């Protein structure tokens, strides 16, 4: 860490802090129910719900999906996926999903 005189800080740098460590409950998305309405992405306070192609394995791994979970995802679709590095488990997405396609599950760590 370098102390720059005047406290200038580089943009977007909070990304080094993985607030995913805060949560107790983790959102689990039922992608078959999901109608891609975008509301979860809009309302998420962390801005950590992303539209990802089911083929983008790298992104899915980065967001915290395990390989066996990725295998069971619908093929060839745009998915709404929480980035588990940052998700604080607030459950706003689960509450607002009009299809109740998101379930908050107690996370085993």
């Amino acid at each position, binding site marked *: 860490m370098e102390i720059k005189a005047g406290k200038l800080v580089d943009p977007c*740098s909070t990304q080094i802090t993985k607030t995913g460590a805060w949560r107790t409950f983790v959102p689990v998305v039922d992608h078959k129910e999901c109608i891609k309405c975008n509301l979860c992405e809009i309302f998420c*306070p962390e801005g950590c719900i992303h539209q990802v192609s089911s083929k983008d394995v790298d992104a899915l791994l980065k967001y915290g999906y395990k390989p066996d979970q990725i295998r069971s995802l619908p093929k060839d679709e745009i998915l709404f996926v929480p980035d588990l590095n940052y998700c604080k488990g607030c*459950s706003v997405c689960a509450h607002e999903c009009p299809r109740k396609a998101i379930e908050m599950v107690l996370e085993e760590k």
Partner: protein
Amino acid sequence: MEKSLLAPGHRACAGCAMPTTVKLVLDAAGPNTIVVSPTSCLEVTTTPFPESAWCVPWIHSLFENAAAVASGVEVMLKRKCKDTNVVVIGGDGSTFDIGMGSNSGMFERGHKILYVCYDNEAYMNTGVQRSGSTPFCAQTTTTPSGSKSLGNPRPKKDMPAIAMAHKVPYVATASVAYPVDLRRKVKAALRVNGPSYIQVNAPCITGWTFDAGTMIEVARLAVETGLWPLAEWVNGELVGVKKVHRAKPVEEYLKSQGRYRHLFKRPEGADILKQIQAMADANIAKYKLAD
């Protein structure tokens, strides 16, 4: 939505309305924007040195001078012929109270600045104390319920009216629960060649006491009861409202939060509930929300 201009990893409470609000404002304003914030939950949670959640240029100076600092930025940008947006995003403590002087000066001088107040109705950063924005009979740590008190004894200060008294050309109320409306209003405000003011209802889990997941629902109820009318004024004239057909009773909104719990426990509360319902009814009539 484009990639968010507010990065994750910020320290806001899980389920806080403020970062959702900011994301929406920045999405509407775009990357060619400079943001000025007063000391606030927003400032503290987004910029713990050496990190910053802001992907646009951002400056924080003091608690009460965001509008003045923004004025200086705007003047210099104008001098360099840059058409960069200048947006103040601050809480109600700064906007309604300690920053009033600065705000008045900025509005009156006519700077091309959008002032967005995310209104969580108390000084949340310092632990939930009453501000000029705290609604009637809401509990805060400095207006608690007790044998001599039913919570905040004063009505909420009418900041939109104060902005309009300064002839601010565009004034609007908005809510985190109505994101399309909020984004539209931000875009409309940024088209104005002068000051603009948008007050966004932003519920606070810690201060209002409700289950984090219901944050949007709580904000929605404020609108659906008529307590938080969504309105838009251009040059002082009301040009649009969000209609509320069959408004919900205020109890539904008040019951959803711990800060009003005392009204349902104490006998005097019944009368207060009637008074708050009357406020909602007055809004419905004044803004013709039901027509």
